[in-house]
């Protein structure tokens, strides 16, 4: 094939698929590069299950109203708040059109999953989860005429001036060049690149588990940086949750995460508590626990609970340590029995009697304990007792490339690349700083996949930097 492709999309997750479908609605020759074999396609999207969107009326899948202002407040309340207010507010505003776009492209919905407390009003669940979403988008893309190459790793980008002229790929056919009129980088973060993480986290990175595939090594991000792309986001910015310490190093996904924390006490390797387990409703706080544990000695922590609360959260995938006294649970976890028993005893004494209610901030708290437990605090006194060791499970890193309102990648020299666009996790650092809001990664990917896909199609059609592309990107993103 000698003709350049109109648009080459690098990455076959949600953002890449949305960009490819959007681009194909505007130009004819669209190629999507998927690094994984077909059976494992979809990157981190395989592990997703819902998308957080503004909606001014409720329906069967998201009962109630979730306004722009409320989503904006929620976004401001996690970590250090939005990174770039302009781009973040654009994301929130355009999120309102995401569900209808998804429905129009074949996605089906289901009621909020059982056991996902507090998510039903704000987040829409797609039927069957992320792999079903990926399968649907592939069907839609194939019907539209998008070409997909599997087992195809984008290794490098070739530039002439401020324009990318070709993508260098390796795959079953060896190393080849693919010429493109415009490129969308939707290749994700660098969370599976432990060496890169070590630059910012030191040896601690060796104890991080990665919830998605091992292919998310940030190769395209590095290529963009070396071509002069501007950085967005914090070096240590990531979405990371507490997962079972026995999880596989890569790709353990949703089943390995632990929801016991708000109903338990969490101790570190010394058997000491270190953070308020009941600070906020779980969907608003689950994403800080990866970071919390990353800051503890050995990057490990232990959730300990009793029989009273054992059925209040999703059952863990791996069996917990079970025993009739706290000391035995501690020993089973490899902890000092005396230290853990002292911590639990002190906690039990500090619990103030209240009306326990897992469905809301119930104010059941401790008094005179440091750190406090602000909600759902009950004495841990009913055998059997349970314990599970947890490690940080990184979902994706935020540090990426700075973009314009049209999704075009900015250069360090304050210029822009004429025909290079970014969508998804690779540009999430424009929006997220250090905290995460459940379901917002898919929102970012869908909103910016549409913007970048339309922008790239415009750039390919115009054949020259800048011309008409901005206008069509805006129309595409809002449409």
């Amino acid at each position, binding site marked *: 094939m000698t003709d350049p492709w109109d648009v080459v999309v690098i990455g076959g997750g949600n953002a890449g698929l949305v960009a490819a479908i959007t681009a194909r609605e505007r130009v004819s020759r669209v190629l999507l590069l998927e690094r994984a*074999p*077909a*059976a*494992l*396609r*979809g990157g981190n999207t*395989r*592990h997703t*299950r819902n998308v957080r969107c503004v909606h001014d009326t409720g329906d069967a899948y998201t009962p109630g109203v979730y306004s722009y202002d409320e989503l904006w407040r929620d976004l401001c309340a996690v970590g250090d708040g939005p990174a770039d207010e302009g781009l973040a507010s654009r994301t929130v505003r355009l999120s309102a059109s995401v569900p209808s776009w998804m429905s129009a492209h074949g996605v*089906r919905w*289901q*009621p909020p*999953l*059982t*056991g996902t407390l507090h998510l039903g009003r704000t987040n829409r*669940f797609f*039927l*069957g*989860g*992320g*792999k*079903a979403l990926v*399968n649907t988008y*592939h*069907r839609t893309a*194939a019907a539209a005429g998008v070409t*997909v190459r*599997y087992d195809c790793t984008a290794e490098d980008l070739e530039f002439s001036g401020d324009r990318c002229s070709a993508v260098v790929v390796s795959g079953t056919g060896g190393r080849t060049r693919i010429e493109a009129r415009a490129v969308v980088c939707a290749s994700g973060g660098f969370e599976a690149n*432990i*060496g890169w993480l070590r630059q910012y986290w030191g*040896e601690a990175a*060796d*104890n991080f588990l990665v919830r998605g595939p091992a292919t998310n090594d940030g190769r395209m991000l590095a290529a963009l940086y070396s071509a002069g792309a501007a950085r967005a986001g914090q070096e240590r910015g990531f979405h990371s949750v507490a997962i079972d*310490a*026995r999880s*596989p190093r890569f*790709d353990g*996904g*949703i*089943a*390995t995460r632990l929801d016991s924390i708000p109903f338990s006490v969490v101790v570190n390797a010394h058997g000491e508590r270190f953070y308020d387990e009941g600070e906020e409703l779980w969907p608003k706080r689950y994403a800080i626990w990866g970071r919390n544990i990353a800051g503890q000695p*050995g*990057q*490990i922590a232990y959730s300990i609970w009793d029989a009273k609360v*054992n*059925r209040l959260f*999703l*059952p*863990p*995938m*791996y*069996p917990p*340590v079970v025993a009739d006294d706290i000391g035995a649970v501690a020993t*089973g*976890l*490899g902890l000092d029995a005396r230290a853990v028993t002292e911590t639990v005893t002190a906690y039990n004494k500090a619990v103030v009697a209240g009306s326990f209610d897992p469905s809301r901030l119930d104010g059941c708290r401790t008094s005179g304990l440091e750190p406090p437990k602000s909600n759902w605090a009950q004495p841990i006194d009913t055998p059997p007792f349970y314990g599970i*060791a947890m490690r940080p499970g990184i979902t994706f890193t935020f540090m990426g490339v700075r973009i314009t309102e049209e999704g075009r990648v900015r250069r360090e020299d304050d210029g822009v690349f004429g025909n290079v666009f970014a969508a998804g996790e690779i540009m999430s650092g424009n929006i997220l700083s250090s905290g995460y809001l459940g379901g917002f990664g898919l929102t970012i990917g869908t909103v910016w996949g549409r913007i970048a896909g339309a922008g790239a199609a415009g750039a390919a059609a115009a054949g020259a930097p800048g011309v008409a592309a901005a206008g069509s990107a805006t129309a595409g993103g809002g449409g």
Partner: protein
Amino acid sequence: MTGKAANPPASPPANPAASPAASPFAGLFAEAERQLTICNACRYCEGYCAVFPALERRRELTSGDITHLADLCHDCRDCYTACMYAPPHEFAINPPAVLSAVRRHTYDEYLPRLPWPASRRGAIAAAALASVAVLASLAVWIGGAGAAGGAGAARGSAAAAGSPYQVIAYPALLAAVGLPALWSVVVMARSGARYWRATGGRGLTRPTALRAALRQAATLRNLRGGGAECSYPADEPSAARRRLHGFVAWGFLACVASTVAAAISQDIAGDPPPYPVLSAPVLLGIAGGAGLIVGCGGLLVLRRRAARAAAGGDAARADPALKDPALRDQALRDQALEDPALARRGYALLTGLLLLAVTGLLTLVLRDSAAFAPVLGIHLAAVVACFAIAPYTKFMHVVYRFLALVHDNAEPI
């Protein structure tokens, strides 16, 4: 890369390949429990069918629970297609395969123990089919000879042309068909009772649960994939299987109704066969036979296509239903989504019903011709054989699945 800091001792879920099990069934249930424990921690599939909500109501799984879930599974395969943990992922989740293996085991478990090893039951069923067919044919011809010599006179009136009693005397017909039918009904009732006890079933006396189960069975709610339809025979969503199953089920019921209508006409209204085309027995028979031919024929085609997908090769690659490479790879990789022995029972049921329908319609078409007697003989032989072996084919799923639906609807949400 340096190693991880010391982890607590890993205790991964039981893996039957790694741990010697007491019996093959223990290994099977351990594997089902391993997979379902991961499913219960994930829950992405709960919108597809009744299996996952039922799983979520359980924190620990007994073998009775696993059997119940396996029979609640309608084998639509949507969960497998949607599963990010399906092979080649190391979690190797494949509910359709493990649940069909559990069904196969439990189907054997609750049937009367034959004096042959369980592994040879497929061969036994085939042998039973052949021998019963031969016996039935003999019976028909003997009966036919009797009829010629005055069976009609024994009933007090000569059988009309096109009447079965020209060929076989009524008592002989009743015995030839009734005995195997009675045997099957007794076996199925007994097996159902054993299944019901083993799974801790409840709700059979609860009208709401019965009504809901009947509705779900009639509409095949659990073959709708939560609106997405099924990933069968390949992994593209399709309503084909649900619709074809409808033809089979309603076709079968129409044939039963035809027989009942004929019995009423003959024994209550005193109107002996043959019946005109525009009569309840014949119209119901035509509709039922046609439904069975369309449904069974279509399902056999779907099964062939699923088998072709599993076998791989150029045929699979050329199959339009397998054009998506990911789904094709997945289909090729998992050679047996359905337990092979269970698949053979599926073939046995569909082939048997198809044979009944074709020979039944032929007896109608040819009832005024010289071929009537031999065709009726073949049809009756097929009826006798199918009735006799029904519990050893997939026909048993009617009993277990309906009981599982009743149980499911009786559980508190």
